[in-house]
């Protein structure tokens, strides 16, 4: 996603990225970034909170226009929960990132991709 933003920007299209993984996006480096300190999944506001969603999008549109330098991050002023314990549970044995079925699909897809690559089609 960050790489796509960079490519558009290199080709004359100003971009703004919305995301929740600040370290990953900032390590890559994107022109404009709206960061929500939320669990992965809701980069444009909490589910069913229309006012927040509109405000987050609005921050991004302002950033598109107003940023004067690349690598500008705006942090949304919202807290996911008064209880921050969700952060400690991310990517732990107790909470595997993918469920077993998705992990199986992921591994199968990798195999198919490798096979396709071996044929020279991709």
């Amino acid at each position: 996603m960050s790489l796509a933003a960079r490519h558009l920007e290199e080709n004359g299209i100003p971009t703004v990225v919305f995301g929740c993984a600040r370290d990953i996006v900032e390590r890559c480096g994107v022109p404009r970034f709206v960061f929500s300190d939320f669990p992965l999944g809701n980069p444009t506001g909490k589910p069913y909170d229309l006012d927040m969603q509109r405000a987050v999008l609005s921050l991004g549109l302002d950033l598109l226009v107003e940023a004067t330098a690349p690598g500008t991050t705006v942090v949304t002023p919202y807290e996911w929960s008064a209880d921050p314990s969700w952060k400690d549970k991310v990517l732990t044995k107790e909470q595997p990132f993918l469920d077993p079925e998705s992990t199986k699909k992921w591994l199968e897809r990798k195999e198919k991709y490798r096979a396709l690559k071996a044929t020279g089609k991709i």
Partner: protein
Amino acid sequence: MNRETASHVRYIDKTREYYQAEGYGKPYEWAHFDDIPFTPFASVGKPLSGCRVGVVTTSEMARRGVEAGPEDPRRLVYALATDIPADELYSRKAAYDRYATTLDDVDSYLPLTHLHRFAAEGRIGAVAPRFQMIQSEYSQRKTLTVDAPEILKQMREDRVDVAVLTAV
């Protein structure tokens, strides 16, 4: 309060630790560049109220009631119309924090409803006729040489002025 709850989650560190504990080998090398490209908004040559806004997302959207078909192992960029009502769309993405949240509300990660409202109110000129799905790929080469150029091509066809990208 420990280091993690005091600030944002360190996904790079956590991913490395998690997959090493699972027995995977070499840790993933996340993309990193010293330089960041920049196109000043002024170069677009018109106000935001005259701009056509493109949308890209990693949220693997599909339309309800439409047979999704078998998954393409090449995982190419695909597009859907932006005028599909949000409640007719759903995400097939499995990689998100399913313990802490849901992807049930499309506008919490793909803000089509709000973009259409901003267009109706004159804040932006218009929403591009289609939005693009890009897969989160292990291969940065594939993203750079296949996916990103395809998105650029489609956005040029659609005369997109500025782009909103949402990473789920």
